């Protein structure tokens, strides 16, 4: 007799532990319906199961004219604070080190088709996300995923997130060894481990096979591992901790130059315990491990980890996985056969595709094929077609990448034209992988509750424009990386792009205009070796012209083989700012209303969907003038940083924050003095204590940055500290703009 539900149908196919956890999760739905679970508790529960909220899940949507209710049939039932039960959400599926099999791909395709919108989205951390999923469908979806041993557990929430890894692991020419089995072992060890359940915030580890390439991006992770072999031939890892992008990017610090493989798991356990014990818990905005490492200093953090390690009770799993590591974690399905096809017999477009989408493995006769996914998306139908291609040509292994693509490894050279043809037939043979066409974007305002501007809309527009002229682009331009985020939270990894953008907004008269902050000079290579700095905010609709200006200037003025980042460094931020200035102008609404909408969205732009509605308000000109001075001071701080005057840079960044605070205070208190103590005190009492400054998601986070710097000026700031201070100043100024916008739109704003 056939089963009438997935729980029965998949009995015995799911790992017992996962099946049991999903049953408990589903049982909690009923308790929530009965009002026996608090909203906050249920929200954290579903987050730890990988079920996220999505834009408009507060039951409201701005249609460009007004905020309208979305009258879901569930009534008052919620799945978290201010989160309507029936509102569609996102489910994130963890893909450790990006490794998938055809079977798993097919099950995810089924889930996308039956519970989502038929699209599988690859994230910048190698996960797969499905959007527009109803919470009621999540237990069955999780069961189906569990039946092929995939989990959404701890894909969200304050725990160990997906463990990412270089997608070329095992076939790369520059790696020390294949990191895949180590990343897998760490994932299995930490999943649900008691020592990772009490973090104040999420924790993201990453593995890389070498120092020089970008694939693992270890320097921007909470914990990063670079494969090393010591003089005795022993395998181990260089370990770095405390990196992260987010609103304030930090480069990780070296915890250990060489941690033997035997110590990999106990060491992360010790790190987890120290983080859980000493990491911030109350203020989630300073709760990532990067803040703990910065506060303690890496030497003290290292000492604490080493002390903690000594106290850990022995666990056989620390080393058990080592004896199971095969010589080759993945193997070819087919023999390496040379490609002997004549030029005239090659499929049309093959050579161009091959020039960007192939990587010659270190094993002779084999290639890695990159499947370039536009904006990280592919369909269920394509996923099934791809599963067939994987089985036919490479066996079991297909991987996601942090550039939102897929790779097939161990492709025999002779099969390349055939594989190209078969990918072409399912719409997956797009060229331009790892080039300027390979744009990276977070979901932004498409689906994210925190999105300010349309990062995917912008990426789609840029892609269309670049596709039209790709053939004529000179090589140095083709090599550039462009990445964008819908807000300052950096999910699009804009800090490590040659040209990065993050969304913000500006009030012009009675209208709000979508903008993107231009971030230049980030380094993708060397595992995200350095971060770019914000150079100025430009209206969203001017971004394509900014890219043309920057790339044309680079082409014309670069010296020899100068890379883009070096070119920007040589120009200096001051000159870059001058170059951007003409693009910062916003035409009057009557002259060009298109500036007042975002890419791919015809509604008049609003930030109301972030939670607070807007109506037409008067511009507070005194605020705008003073806030723009604050921006200038922050810019001067960048110049000082660039010239190596770290103390000056730090001081100017602080002054910029004080100036912005003063601008905001003046909207309520005309006679505010220039004394920083007075300004900060007034700001605190008028905007922080009253929570007027708080936005729905960041709360008082950016105000605390001002208070912290005001109360604790650094004695002798180094480059990192000055850099952080500038980033914080920029964020604080943005928050002041946002606060002014909210208050000027509110009947109680501006004059209290």
């Amino acid at each position: 007799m056939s089963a009438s539900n997935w729980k029965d149908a998949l009995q015995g196919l799911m790992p017992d532990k996962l099946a049991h956890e999903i049953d408990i999760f589903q049982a909690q739905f009923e308790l929530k319906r009965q009002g026996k679970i608090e909203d906050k508790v249920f929200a954290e529960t579903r987050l730890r199961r990988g079920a996220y909220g999505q834009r408009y899940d507060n039951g409201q949507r701005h249609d460009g004219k007004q905020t309208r209710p979305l009258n879901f049939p569930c009534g008052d039932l919620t799945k978290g604070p201010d989160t309507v039960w029936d509102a569609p959400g996102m489910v994130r599926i963890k893909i450790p080190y990006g490794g998938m099999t055809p079977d798993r791909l097919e099950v995810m395709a089924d889930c996308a088709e039956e519970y989502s919108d038929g699209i599988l989205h690859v994230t910048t951390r190698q996960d797969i996300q499905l959007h527009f999923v109803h919470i009621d469908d999540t237990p069955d979806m999780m069961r189906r995923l569990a039946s092929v041993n995939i989990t959404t557990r701890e894909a969200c929430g304050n725990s160990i997130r997906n463990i990412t890894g270089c997608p070329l692991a095992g076939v790369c020419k520059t790696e020390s060894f294949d990191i895949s089995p180590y990343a897998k072992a760490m994932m299995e060890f930490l999943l649900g481990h008691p020592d990772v359940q009490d973090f104040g915030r999420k924790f993201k580890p990453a593995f890389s096979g070498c120092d020089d390439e970008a694939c693992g991006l270890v320097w921007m992770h909470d914990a990063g591992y670079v494969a090393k072999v010591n003089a005795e031939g022993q395998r181990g890892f260089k370990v770095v901790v405390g990196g992260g992008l987010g609103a304030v990017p930090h480069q990780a610090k070296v915890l250990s130059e060489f941690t033997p493989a035997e110590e990999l798991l106990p060491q992360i356990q010790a790190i987890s315990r120290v983080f859980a014990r000493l990491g911030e818990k109350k203020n989630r905005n300073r709760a990532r491990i990067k803040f703990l490492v910065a506060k303690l200093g890496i030497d003290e953090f290292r000492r604490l980890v080493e002390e903690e390690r000594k106290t850990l009770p022995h666990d056989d799993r620390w080393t058990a996985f080592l004896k199971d590591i095969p010589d080759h974690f993945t193997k070819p399905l087919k023999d390496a056969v040379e490609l002997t096809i004549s030029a005239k017999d090659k499929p049309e477009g093959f050579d161009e595709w091959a020039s960007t989408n192939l990587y010659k493995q270190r094993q002779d006769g084999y290639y890695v094929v990159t499947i370039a996914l536009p904006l990280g998306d592919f369909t269920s139908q394509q996923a099934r077609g791809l599963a067939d291609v994987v089985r036919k040509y490479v066996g079991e292994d297909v991987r996601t990448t942090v550039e939102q693509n897929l790779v097939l490894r161990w492709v025999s050279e002779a099969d390349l034209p055939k594989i190209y043809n078969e990918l072409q037939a399912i719409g997956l043979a797009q060229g331009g992988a790892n080039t300027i066409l390979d744009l990276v974007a977070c979901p932004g305002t498409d689906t994210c509750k925190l999105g300010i501007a349309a990062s995917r809309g912008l990426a789609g527009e840029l892609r269309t424009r670049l596709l039209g002229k790709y053939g004529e682009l000179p090589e140095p331009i083709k090599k550039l990386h462009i990445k964008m985020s819908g807000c300052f939270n950096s999910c699009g990894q804009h800090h490590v792009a040659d040209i990065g953008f993050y969304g913000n907004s500006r009030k012009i008269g009675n209208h709000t205009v979508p903008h993107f902050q231009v971030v230049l000079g980030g380094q993708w290579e060397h595992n995200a070796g350095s971060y770019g700095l914000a150079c100025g905010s430009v209206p969203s609709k001017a971004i394509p012209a900014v890219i043309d200006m920057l790339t044309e200037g680079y082409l014309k003025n670069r010296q020899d083989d100068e890379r883009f980042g070096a070119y920007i460094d040589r120009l200096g931020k001051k000159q870059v700012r001058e170059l951007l200035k003409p693009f910062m102008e916003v035409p009057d609404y009557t002259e060009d209303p298109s500036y007042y909408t975002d890419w791919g969205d015809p509604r008049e732009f609003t930030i109301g969907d972030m939670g607070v509605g807007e109506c037409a308000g008067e511009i507070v000109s005194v605020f705008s003038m003073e806030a723009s001075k604050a921006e200038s001071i922050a810019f001067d701080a960048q110049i000082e940083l660039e010239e190596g005057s770290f103390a000056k840079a730090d001081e100017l960044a602080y002054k910029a924050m004080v100036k912005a605070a003063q601008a905001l205070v003046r909207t309520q208190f005309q006679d505010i003095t220039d004394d920083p103590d007075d300004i900060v005190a007034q700001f605190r009492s008028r905007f922080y204590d009253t929570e007027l400054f708080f936005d729905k998601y960041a709360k008082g986070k950016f105000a605390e940055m001002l208070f912290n710097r005001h109360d604790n000026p650094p004695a002798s700031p180094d480059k990192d500290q000055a850099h952080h201070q500038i980033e914080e100043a920029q964020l604080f100024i943005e928050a002041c703009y946002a606060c002014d916008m909210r208050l000027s739109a509110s009947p109680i704003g501006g004059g209290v």
Partner: protein
Amino acid sequence: MQRISAKLYVEDSSAVTPTAIIPVFHRWISDGAVEGLLIDVADYKHVPEGPGIMLIGHEGDYSVEYTDGVPAFRYERKRDRPSESELREQIHQVLRLTLIGANTLAENPDPHGPIGFRTDEVVVSIADRLRAPNTAENFESIKHEVEAAVAEIYGAVVETIERISEDARVPLGFRVRIDKAPALKELVGRVQTAAAS
């Protein structure tokens, strides 16, 4: 069933510009132009042979999609309605909303010009691998329900009904060809009259 969908192909592919559909769907949300709670517009025009432009709803999604390489108007119902216990009634309702949605788009005063839809071919799909996996047996047993629902709305003879794919991984699909199919406007008139009575 988990999901049931129906779609109609456009008469002239060149008449459809995905970018032009985006503001139309946004307007539908503001105006409540079609049935159901409408939530947001999802833009997938960058995905080859993908879902195109989607109007995400609570009960179901509307889209102008390209999964067969040519544009089609599709409605997919996502949630069961307690009042529709019979499969034939469920299919009937999905067809009704597809026709009304396509007609609303066809009558849209868009500067890009009118979009016409062929009514002589309808594709019905059931994405429910638990209750209706794509097997020959299921095709045979469900095709009568599809045939009956189409004949009821069209008042015309179903000429052929084919199983779209024998690949068990693909949702169970029915390609229905109708002899002497009435025009879209007439079909919409019929379903509206039937609903009113």
